[in-house]
């Protein structure tokens, strides 16, 4: 479903992921009987719900987890899916919005930090493609990094989409004063979005100043085993 993007279009759009494929990011973190299962993947919300249980069973069998995990996994996925679907019926405003996306993740031995801009209005954007290019250009050999990067991007986009739904709801409530609504729209979620007027003005250039290049440059670090262990320990401490 594509929206002809015009800067003045403020028509609400039905909620969906602002990417080419409408996939939901699902994150699992289940701990039972001393065993912990952490995973993150994308799910297609148009798959029938029966698939959830099938998937849970298959995962437990492949990873040789104890069978209690099946129900827990299925439940967790189902909850997140329902949450996604609850947003689906609602409207969101996606006027021109270019948001910064930050990547800060560790996948096995690879540490990635990155910062770039993403257009929410671009319904043809593809986080998977971005992740693929990223891994190719940076010469990353670990095949788990690509999907992790794509997932991180999707998660952030999902967050932003949810926020825009919330703000759309607020606007509806305050629709009584038209002028007020306009003002609210232009400054909605203003913290994150870039001020397009300032950036893409006629006199300014879209080429960044050299001293700013390092900000938007990706950093890929390969960690040694000890560093990995140290980081994991710290993460565990943080989540407890």
């Amino acid at each position, binding site marked *: 479903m594509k929206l002809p993007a015009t800067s003045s279009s403020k028509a609400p759009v039905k909620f969906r992921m602002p990417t080419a494929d409408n996939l939901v990011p699902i994150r699992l973190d289940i701990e039972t009987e001393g065993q912990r299962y952490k995973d993150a993947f994308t799910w297609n919300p148009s798959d029938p719900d029966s698939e959830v249980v099938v998937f849970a069973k298959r995962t437990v069998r492949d990873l040789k987890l104890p069978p209690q995990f099946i129900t827990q996994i299925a439940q967790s996925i189902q909850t997140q899916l329902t949450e996604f679907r609850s947003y689906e019926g609602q409207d969101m405003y996606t006027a021109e919005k270019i948001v910064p996306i930050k990547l800060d993740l560790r996948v096995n031995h690879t540490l990635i930090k990155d910062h770039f801009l993403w257009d929410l209005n*671009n319904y043809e954007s593809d986080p998977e493609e971005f992740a693929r290019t990223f891994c190719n250009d940076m010469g990353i050999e670990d095949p788990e990094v690509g999907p992790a990067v794509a997932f991180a991007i999707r998660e952030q986009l999902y967050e932003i989409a949810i926020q825009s739904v919330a703000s759309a709801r607020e606007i509806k409530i305050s629709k009584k004063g038209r002028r007020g609504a306009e003002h609210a729209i232009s400054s909605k979620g203003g913290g994150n979005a870039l001020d397009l007027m300032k950036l893409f003005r006629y006199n300014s250039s879209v080429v960044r100043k050299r001293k700013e290049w390092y900000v938007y440059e990706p950093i890929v670090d390969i960690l040694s085993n000890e560093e990995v262990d140290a980081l994991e320990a710290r993460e565990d401490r943080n989540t407890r």
Partner: protein
Amino acid sequence: MEMPQYDPNTKPEFELYTIPSHSSWFRWDDIHETERTALKEFFDGSSISRTPKIYKEYRDFMINKYREEPSRRLTFTQVRKSLVGDVSLLHKVFRFLDEWGLINFGAVSRGDDSDNRDSSLGDTELKNQVKIEEGAPNGVRVVALPNSLKPISVPNSGADGSGNGKVAVAGETGVKLPPLASYSDVFGDLVKLKGFKCGSCGEQCNSGCYEYSKGSFVICEKCFKNGNYGEDKSKDDFRFSDLGGNSLTHGATWTEAETLLLLESVMRHGDNWELVAQNVPTKSKLDCISKLIELPFGEFMMGSAHEMNSCPTGSLNSLKEGQSASSENQNDVKMEDQVHDQMNESKQNGDAATEEPPAKRKRIAPLSDGGSTLIKQVAHISTMVGPHVTAAAAEAAVAALCNESSCPREIFDGDEDYLANGLSSPTMVSDPERALQVDASKMEENQSETQDASSEKNDVPLNLRIRTATATALGAAAANAKLLADQEDREIEHLVAIIIETQMKKLHSKINYFDDLELIMEKEYNEMMQLKECLVEERIDVLERALKTGVSKWRS
């Protein structure tokens, strides 16, 4: 294109960048239609973050960034950090430029196998460039024994001077690798030509040497005469081998007559150097080939493989390759000869039927075959394209040659008439063979004419004659093509007629089927009507009987 600081004393240097020819629409100061259609988002005025000006900035930045270092492959990640905007959109622009070759055209292509990668891009590129070195690296001399100074030359069946080295190598390593065929082809003759050092007096044997038949020992003529045979060797053991006539640089004095003979035989026999050498009695095969190359258009005759080498020394090398690998080429040559003969044959016989099979075979073979001569290729191509194209090409070729100098015009005047005749043969559909015969005979006439003319007066330049012959051959090829095309047309018509007939038959049978069906339906209908009548009658019967026997009173 960058200009370094302008110094009035030096010329400004322009750096050249290569882009593929299908991207020649690209201009720095303009945005082309191709860009507008491929990247619509920038040009439909839909947002302030996507304007033509912004697109131009993105594009110019990426191209300039690539051109800072044209040999390294620019990655998207390197550019996106410097540009403000949606990364997906930037990626789209980047991919557009990449596909059109405006960036990364000369860069190393990245390996698809991710196992080859390093985290640093430089290493990746180096790994993908495999360097192949042949033989020992420069500065390294392979010697037989650890401390001897005598270098080992390539073990070669042809070369006899290196026998010592060969034996020693075998002894040392225990494994004697067979010489690479290509190596011996290229270097075999060179080794042969190297001067032999006399085993006894140590001087160079230039003119002739005596080889020891039981081993590999060489002495010069002088020593032979003097009786210095070396230890344990007697006079009878030596055999004379003459190196005199073997060098290419001297001994080739070609007279006009010989050149003429050479050209004729090359035209007749193509690449079959054995026959050519036979026809030119005083010169060896090697001499023939080298002379031909030295002639200004000699490579024209030799075939496209040798055309690649523009410098004579380069061509000389490839010549040696071709010559000493003659066993491999023999098959090709024979095949070429066959085709040549067939072409000639069919022209002379004027038999359309036999023309087809060879032409068909040629059609199936690949278009640009490096092993075939230029004439064969031209004929090949002319069978593939339409006859009008070929005719136009032939005319253009003739015109081009005429434009070069006025002299050939006289020669071609005779040609043009006959070419026109040959090309207007479409009207003579009924008698194509005769036309071809006419062409062929005229061509032969013309050839002999031109050759007579030149033998009378030797001032007609050699290359023009050859070009004449070539142009006539092109014309004949064009006529050939036209005839084949006519045949194909007829075949197509015939086939189409068959198809139409079959369709008609199909329709007819369908109609018949439906007619039968109708008949059956009618019959059934009739039967149904009859049945209906019967039923009505029966009903009437029943009612009558009922009335006869009396009706019970109706209750009102």
